[in-house]
């Protein structure tokens, strides 16, 4: 089957758990094979100050009051390892949220909410039409930067998200170049790979294209140049934004409607050319759970970071939504194969370097039970591509942050610093690639001077 796949598309969203996005599939009887939520919801209740907080159905897709915590210390609280049996109880999500945010406690704390199909129609449609992965866990029980680094390098030198540039050792792009594989990144805004200074040089080439070209390239680019591996990047909530650009990476406190629209557009693009779609596999997944509740304890597969203090993690991270969209999956299927972000790297190695693993660490993780995405693929192809729901997406949201307020939180400041460092090193190239960054730097400096009278975040 792998020989029939000509294009692998990777679309990684931000910070939502499996039960939060897909738990409704089993709860509402859309697909009872999905290991999501089931009645009674009280069985999943998290306990805080003696009182239970069961999952609840979110009524309106709106911006949240706070971003639920998802650093490694908060995740340890969320997993809540039992003293009695050594197992993760998955009952500390409310405790971590209240401790971190100090918001007033209500019967419906945000981390326990789950969406209905009406609020995540495209995610729900793709999951119920193609293949839902019941056991895809984030690679590490920590935050965005280490998990994305595991996803695209197969290793991580860092253990948490900080104001830092990150080592890209073992990265997917150098690997693809080395193997002579055609690849491209389509980015809707500043690329996440700005955090990796060793990868900046790629950004100023045609390897990194504006997202708006995705549809037309799928539609009409010649096979000779069309990429075999595509990374699609949403517009990141924590990256610099200007004007009408609305982030759509689903990072809280964003409403998810913007991400749903981005997912719909991406699905339309990959299916617009029937001949090309017939040989395409798209992986839709999330970097980590973002502090939202999930009921499945992660397996005890450990990892030690390659840099810094060589932090030891004793399990995978929290389970995340993952959907395989392709003619090469059984329509409406559910997979119980154990997967994490490095399962994609296993797939790439199987496809492009049969018999030779992507890296030593990816091979080691395979030895610990993490399997390849290829294990989920079907024996026969079904090239039909049902149209995604076209009903309007209703989002209740204010405009959100703007440049009148300079970033103050870790991840936005880290994005700002990475962008600034890239400007310092490649001023003219960045001006051509990301013209909006020039005004961003100017405005952020004004905002910061106006609010605290000093410059920060390395600016």
């Amino acid at each position, binding site marked *: 089957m792998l020989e029939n796949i000509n294009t692998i598309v990777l679309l990684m969203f931000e910070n939502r758990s499996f039960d939060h996005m897909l738990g409704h599939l089993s709860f509402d009887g859309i697909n009872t094979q999905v290991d999501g939520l089931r009645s009674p919801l009280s069985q999943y209740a998290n306990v805080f100050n003696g009182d239970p907080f069961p999952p*609840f159905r979110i009524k309106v897709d709106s911006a949240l009051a706070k971003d639920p915590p998802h650093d490694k210390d908060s995740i340890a609280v969320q997993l809540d390892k039992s003293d009695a049996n050594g197992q993760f*109880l998955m009952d500390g999500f409310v405790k971590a949220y209240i401790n971190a945010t100090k918001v007033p406690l209500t019967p419906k704390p945000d981390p326990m909410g789950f969406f209905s199909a009406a609020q995540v129609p495209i995610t729900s449609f793709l999951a119920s039409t193609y293949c839902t992965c019941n056991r895809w866990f984030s690679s590490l029980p920590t935050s965005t930067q280490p998990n994305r680094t595991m996803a695209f390098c197969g290793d991580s030198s860092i253990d948490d998200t900080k104001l830092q540039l990150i080592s890209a050792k073992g990265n997917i792009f150098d690997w693809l170049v080395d193997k002579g594989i055609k690849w491209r990144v389509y980015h809707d805004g500043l690329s996440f790979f700005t955090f990796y200074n060793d990868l900046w040089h790629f950004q100023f080439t045609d390897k990194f294209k504006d997202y708006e070209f995705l549809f037309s390239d799928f539609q009409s680019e010649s096979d000779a140049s069309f990429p075999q591996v595509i990374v699609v990047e949403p517009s990141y909530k924590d990256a610099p934004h200007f004007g009408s650009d609305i982030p759509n990476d689903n990072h809280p406190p964003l409403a998810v409607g913007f991400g749903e629209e981005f997912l719909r557009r991406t699905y339309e693009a990959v299916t617009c050319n029937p001949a090309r779609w017939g040989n395409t596999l798209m992986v839709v997944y999330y970097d980590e759970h973002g502090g939202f509740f999930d009921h499945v304890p992660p397996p005890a597969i450990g990892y030690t970071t390659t840099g810094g203090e060589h932090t030891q993690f004793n399990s995978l991270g929290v389970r995340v939504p993952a959907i395989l969209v392709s003619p090469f999956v059984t329509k409406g299927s559910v997979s119980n194969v154990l997967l994490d972000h490095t399962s994609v790297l296993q797939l790439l190695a199987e496809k492009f370097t049969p018999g030779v693993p992507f890296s030593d660490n990816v091979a080691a993780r395979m030895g610990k039970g993490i399997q390849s995405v290829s294990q989920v693929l079907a024996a026969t192809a079904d090239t039909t591509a049902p149209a995604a729901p076209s009903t309007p997406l209703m989002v209740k949201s204010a405009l959100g942050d703007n440049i009148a307020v300079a970033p103050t939180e870790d991840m936005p400041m880290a994005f700002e610093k990475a962008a600034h460092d890239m400007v310092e090193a490649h001023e003219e190239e960045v001006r051509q690639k990301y013209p909006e960054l020039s005004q961003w730097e100017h405005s952020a400096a004004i905002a910061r001077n106006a609010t605290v009278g000093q410059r920060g975040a390395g600016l």
Partner: protein
Amino acid sequence: MFNLSLNIRIRKAGLLIIPALLWGVGACSPKVRSFTASPATMITKDDSVKFNWKVTGEPTLLFYQEDAGDDLNPGAQLLSYKLVARKGQKEDFLMQILTLLPDTSSHVIKLKTIRNGNALFALDTLQTQKWGTYFKVDQVQSFTDQPIVVVHGGRTAGLEAKGQVSGAFKGIPNSGPWEIRSFLTEAEMKDSTKIPGHLIIQARVIHQKN
């Protein structure tokens, strides 16, 4: 700065805006210095809630009611009171959020276990600040497979099997310490991963002022 108290009698759903109840003229920005409700967290219909506040600026009390029902208490409602203080273009606010429960409601008591030899203990306290003293236990039901002993309010009850009901705690306030004990089974003694992480009962609670 002005102080005010207001009694609101709970009757029905809707959006209530009480504008300009009282306003203060101060030299600085608007500020909600305090905003308290009594009872503070949970009520039943026909309860009165007393609000007290201290604000600088023009106060407006916004009220919003929404469904908070779940498997156990489908009729529960969430009552949100937002006190906003405004002065010029600036504002400040504090929230009070109450749960409106049916007269008889059910609540899971899920306690994290600690192993001591061949026994399991699970203990936690339901806060009086949240539950007050009017919510009283009617009966408890075991949600645990093996025999358990439940201790609460100076009384003890044994529940032999999942689903068994006991009225041993009838009339005792739901708030306060709850303890559940159990012995390990042979299978759990041999394989500690089989030990339950929680011991669980369900309490049926009645709102009873007398």
